[in-house]
């Protein structure tokens, strides 16, 4: 990078207020979208709200110095997986809101929300408990790395060396999934 050009992201000693503000904005929108997604009756509407959630998550990824992942999120998750979902919904003609039968009763909902809150509390406690000092990278390490090599290089350099086996296996997995999906969804010729 030529010296003097504005940094792609700030070294994280002190965060500018705008950064924090936008982090919260994207997070909030993601959460609201998720809630809306869960409560929609129409599958199409729900799917679209989920797409929105994923977009905001992609924004969060970018802000967390995982720009490549952010791009992949939009491309693969929102762009391919959710599209497949929508395809299936359309294919099975399930797009209409199913008023009476879809959502369970009030009691169930309250219990489910209670469970959700409990789960949330537990996760918070567990993940916030301990930061492991020995392996914590210095502030801004990822950003500086990205400034030097770009966002893709850190991932790829590890992916094709240390995690090569997993990579290859994943490719086989994808093959299996494709074959399986075709076989499962194939219309069977009625021989009877």
């Amino acid at each position, binding site marked *: 990078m030529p010296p003097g050009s504005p940094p792609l992201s700030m070294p994280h000693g002190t965060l500018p207020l705008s950064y924090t503000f936008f982090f919260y904005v994207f997070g909030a929108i993601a959460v609201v979208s998720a809630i809306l997604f869960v409560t929609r009756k129409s599958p199409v509407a729900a799917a679209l709200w989920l797409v929105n959630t994923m977009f905001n998550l992609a924004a969060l990824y970018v802000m967390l110095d995982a720009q490549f992942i952010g791009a992949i999120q939009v491309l693969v998750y929102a762009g391919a997986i959710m599209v497949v979902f929508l395809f299936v919904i359309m294919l099975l003609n399930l797009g209409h809101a199913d008023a009476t*039968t879809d959502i369970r009763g009030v009691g169930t909902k309250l219990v489910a929300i209670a469970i959700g809150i409990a789960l*949330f509390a537990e996760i918070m406690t567990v993940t916030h408990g301990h930061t492991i000092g020995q392996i914590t990278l210095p502030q801004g390490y990822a950003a500086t790395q990205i400034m030097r090599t770009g966002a893709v290089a850190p991932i790829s350099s590890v992916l094709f060396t240390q995690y090569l086996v997993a990579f290859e296996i994943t490719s086989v997995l994808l093959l299996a999934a494709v074959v399986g999906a075709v076989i499962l969804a194939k219309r069977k010729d009625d021989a009877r």
Partner: protein
Amino acid sequence: MLAEALFFSAVLFAIGVVGVLTRRNAIIVFMCVELMLNAVNLTFVAFAQAYGVAGQVFVFFVMTVAAAEAAVGLAIIIALFRHRQTIDLEHINILKG
């Protein structure tokens, strides 16, 4: 930003769980599962910022597997719909044993 990201991740995960428990439409339940996976991805990415790029690699794999899973799962739902003409989970109970 680690703490905030983890917070959001936990909220999203909880919302996904509530959705799985509450909804009866199979596809929506499936999408809630995807939401949960996304929440986990956020966690990994947040940790990647602090602990190294392995987190992002993991996210990479999660996405790949989620894609495969979505493909197969939807194929199953299609096959199910063909036989049962419904994807309401209440009515899909042949596993009863």
